[in-house]
């Protein structure tokens, strides 16, 4: 009995000593590497940190993808990786020569060239794609027309459960029928021979080719998918400039260059994404080479005296934030009230106070970078007196006549909550209206917006491809399922639908501009800010492009050797 107890006591004592020793040792040896501002001193753990990197390896911060299956992708975090691992017939290329130019060019990817549309007698339009000879999967098997057809069929298969197939591929004849289980095959996709494939769409739609650049239209390896339906994305056989080396949940994604990439092998051999950890902290600790800059650090980074300022870039992003008004919900059924609420907001003040002027005020809905962007377009400008006047002229007769109003936003917290507080204050001070905040969970927020549950709400929209249709038609056509305000203006409908099928670029721009000005005047949306990406890039990273939407860009990067 005594010995046992002594032993237990001995163990306890040993434990105490051990813990103490471990803590001391660990802190002492590792000190300065990760947390401080010393140079790279690493311990031999399997962390790729402490400032050391392998030759030819680019380290980035990344969000965690939801999936690596291109046919199931619709979110930004997944798309970032998918566009590098997979490819489709066409792609969008950023301007490598001039990083400040945010326009994206439609370029052929697996296809040899961008085909001209051929009008058919029945009104449909056929594109004939010829595949490149040297287009292969990562495992060197050539990409054939049959693979393209298989991929499109799979995307449109109800069993795949893609939520966006109808949107991106719905123009193709037969896709809707297949999605509704009325057909087994897409009639509009026809394999002519191993290298040629015909895609027929219901009517002439210039945006269709842009939609083909989105992951839903990417090509996957039939053999791989069918033999391993559950887990094939763990080791995907794609056609893109990079191969997936490993994906460790919550930790990292490592990509290896595809030396046989048909558009040119990437210069950077390995790209390592760190999925956890705060970007800017990792960047300053030299764990990653590029990071985006959170709003809280913007002042510091924009200050010319701060050393980080040399590494700071800011690029346009095709996205915007806006306040949406539910046209069907009083008091926003009256356009004067909508206008009044819009005019009561001083966006410049929010931009300078909260966002350090890093976010440009949006004068319109279409953003810079789109062909139809109109610098002259005018969203309602800040005019407190005018706003009050309009309110009194409205059917509600002024602030007292208004029903209780609430503003809904997704419960993202942080700066979102703070800019909302500013909005509320402005409505209170300038209009005398007390607006309540309704913070909704993101899980239900979007659904509720579409069901018209809120009177007004704050949202943002990021384009998936650089075409006006991806914002104007989707949200302002009265019959579009994505119309989140219930906006219905027959004139705008006509303009938008005409623009959809208009093949003359100049005329198209004109149509969209007309529609936009109408929309701006009717104020179903009040545009707040255009999106911009703010990044810090280490000096030895060259040609790191920050495109306006999610498109492949890593293959252009080059790394200079460091000390």
């Amino acid at each position, binding site marked *: 009995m005594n010995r046992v107890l002594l032993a237990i006591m001995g163990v306890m004592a040993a434990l105490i000593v051990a813990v103490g020793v471990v803590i001391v040792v660990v802190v002492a040896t590792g000190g300065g590497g990760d947390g401080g501002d010393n140079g790279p001193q690493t311990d031999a753990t399997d962390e790729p940190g402490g400032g050391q990197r392998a030759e030819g390896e680019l380290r980035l911060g990344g969000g965690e993808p939801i999936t690596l299956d291109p046919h199931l992708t619709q979110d930004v975090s997944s798309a970032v990786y998918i566009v590098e691992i997979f490819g489709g017939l066409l792609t969008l290329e950023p301007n490598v020569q001039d990083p400040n130019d945010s326009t994206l060019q439609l370029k052929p990817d697996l296809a040899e060239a961008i085909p001209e549309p051929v009008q058919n007698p029945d009104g449909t339009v056929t594109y004939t794609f010829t595949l490149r000879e040297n287009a292969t999967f990562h495992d060197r098997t050539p990409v054939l027309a049959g693979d393209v057809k298989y991929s499109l069929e799979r995307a449109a298969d109800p069993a795949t459960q893609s939520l966006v197939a109808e949107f991106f591929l719905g123009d193709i004849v037969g896709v809707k029928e297949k999605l509704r289980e009325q057909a087994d095959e897409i009639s509009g996709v026809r394999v002519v021979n191993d290298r040629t494939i015909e895609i027929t769409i219901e009517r002439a739609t210039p945006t269709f080719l842009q939609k083909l650049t989105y992951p839903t239209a990417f090509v996957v390896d039939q053999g791989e998918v069918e033999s391993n339906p559950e887990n094939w994305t763990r080791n995907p056989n794609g056609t893109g400039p990079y191969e997936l080396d490993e994906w460790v949940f919550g930790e990292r994604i490592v990509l290896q260059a595809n030396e046989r990439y048909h558009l040119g092998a990437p210069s950077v051999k390995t790209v390592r994404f760190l999925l956890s950890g705060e970007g800017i902290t990792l960047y300053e600790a030299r764990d990653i080479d590029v990071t985006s800059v959170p709003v809280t650090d913007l002042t510091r980074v924009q200050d010319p005296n701060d050393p980080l300022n040399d590494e700071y870039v800011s690029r346009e992003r095709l996205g915007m934030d806006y306040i949406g008004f539910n046209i069907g919900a009083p008091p926003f059924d009256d356009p004067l009230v909508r206008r009044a609420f819009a005019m009561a907001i001083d966006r410049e003040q929010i931009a300078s106070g909260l966002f350090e002027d890093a976010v440009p005020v949006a004068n319109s809905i279409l953003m810079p970078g789109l062909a139809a962007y109109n610098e002259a377009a005018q969203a309602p400008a800040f005019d407190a007196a005018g706003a009050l006047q309009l309110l009194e002229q409205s059917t509600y007769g002024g602030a007292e006549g208004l029903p209780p109003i609430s503003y809904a936003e997704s419960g993202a917290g942080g700066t979102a909550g703070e800019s909302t507080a500013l909005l509320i204050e402005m409505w209170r001070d300038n209009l005398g209206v007390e607006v*309540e905040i309704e913070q909704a969970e993101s899980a239900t927020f979007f659904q509720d917006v579409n069901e018209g549950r809120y009177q007004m709400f704050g949202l943002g929209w990021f384009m998936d491809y650089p075409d006006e249709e991806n914002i104007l038609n989707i949200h302002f056509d009265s019959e579009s399922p994505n119309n989140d305000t219930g906006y219905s203006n027959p004139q705008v409908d006509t303009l938008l639908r005409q623009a959809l099928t208009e093949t003359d670029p100049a005329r198209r721009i004109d149509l969209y501009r007309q529609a936009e000005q109408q929309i701006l005047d009717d104020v179903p949306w009040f545009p707040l800010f255009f999106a911009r990406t703010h990044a810090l890039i280490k000096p030895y990273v060259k040609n790191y492009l920050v495109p306006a939407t999610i498109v492949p860009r890593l293959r252009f990067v080059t790394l200079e050797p460091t000390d």
Partner: protein
Amino acid sequence: MAGAAVALPDDTQEAGPPARSVWGQALRRLLRKRLALAALVLIGCFYFVGLFAPLLAPYDYRDTNVEELQFQGPSLAHPFGTDRIGRDLLTHVIWSARTTMIVTVATVVAGGLVLGVGLGLLAGYVGGKVDTAIMRTGEIFISLPGLPMLILINATMAPRAENGVGWLESHISSDTLQEALEARAGPEFVFLALLGALAVAGVAGLAAWLVAGEERRRGAWLTPFIAAAVVVTSLWAVQAIFATDGAADYFLIFGALSLFSWAGGARVIRSQVLAIRETEYVLAARAMGASTWRIVGSHLLPNVMPIIIVGLSAGLGGIAGSEVALTFLGVGVHEPTPSFGAMISRAASINLLEDYPHLLLAPGIVVALLIFSFNLLGDALNDVLTPRAR
């Protein structure tokens, strides 16, 4: 026999033997412990501040001033500094105290007292199938992982709570009541009238109690007045809760918290009741034909009181912590209702901490002190009220 027959009526009027002297002694011993006294004072201050927040706060908690007041450190005008959009932190601390006060009191009343004590008493005294049913249900709730379930419930049920509370809010908000008062008509007016009558009754009871001599201070005749006072207080509390901003949040939080916190207390109360049930006093009272209510009120409750109080004060700390935690995670009270959880979550980012630690210090220290005080008090009460086991 004769002696017993004479002694008993006294016994049934007073509470069971240990209770009375324990109270007085306990209170005195408690007050002698300096730390406990300090804790009590702190808690009292906190709740006082919370109760009178609208009057005490120097600024409106929604006032923002991005231009001039961003991130100010502590100063004369703003003793705790300001946050990113220029809101005064002292004001927010005061209003957050109110939020915590509301949630803790509501949960303790609903979960601890009503559910915990009520069900514990029921289970212990009635026994049998009722006992088994209540205890089994309690065990299930104890086995449920608290925080995850709370997150789940709050995350998923919030909109439903909104709808339910919305109805309640529209009927008993301060404005509606005021209108009813002026109009002297409608169901709200009746409600107000009833409230008024009960309040009068409660006050009358209080007056009578004060006026009555020592011997008459206990007794069954007090019961209706006490009941009236309790009803009035709870209704007033309910009205106060539902008339404020973010009532649905409160409702959901304290509802969920009560659901998970009643079982522990009930179990303890039940075992205590089981022990007392078989004592001579109770048996004798029953033999004398005393009603269940009298037995519960005169014998059980007073003996169970110490445990209730200790449990309450310990629980309060936990509940305050839970509310802060839930709000921090985004599933508690929402903007713009101020809460310590929200303040801490805003302050906790590494970048902000580096430059503006005062954002965290203000709410952090207050919360820590509060919970510390609850713990100290609970400890002291424990020492004082329960007999030394060692």
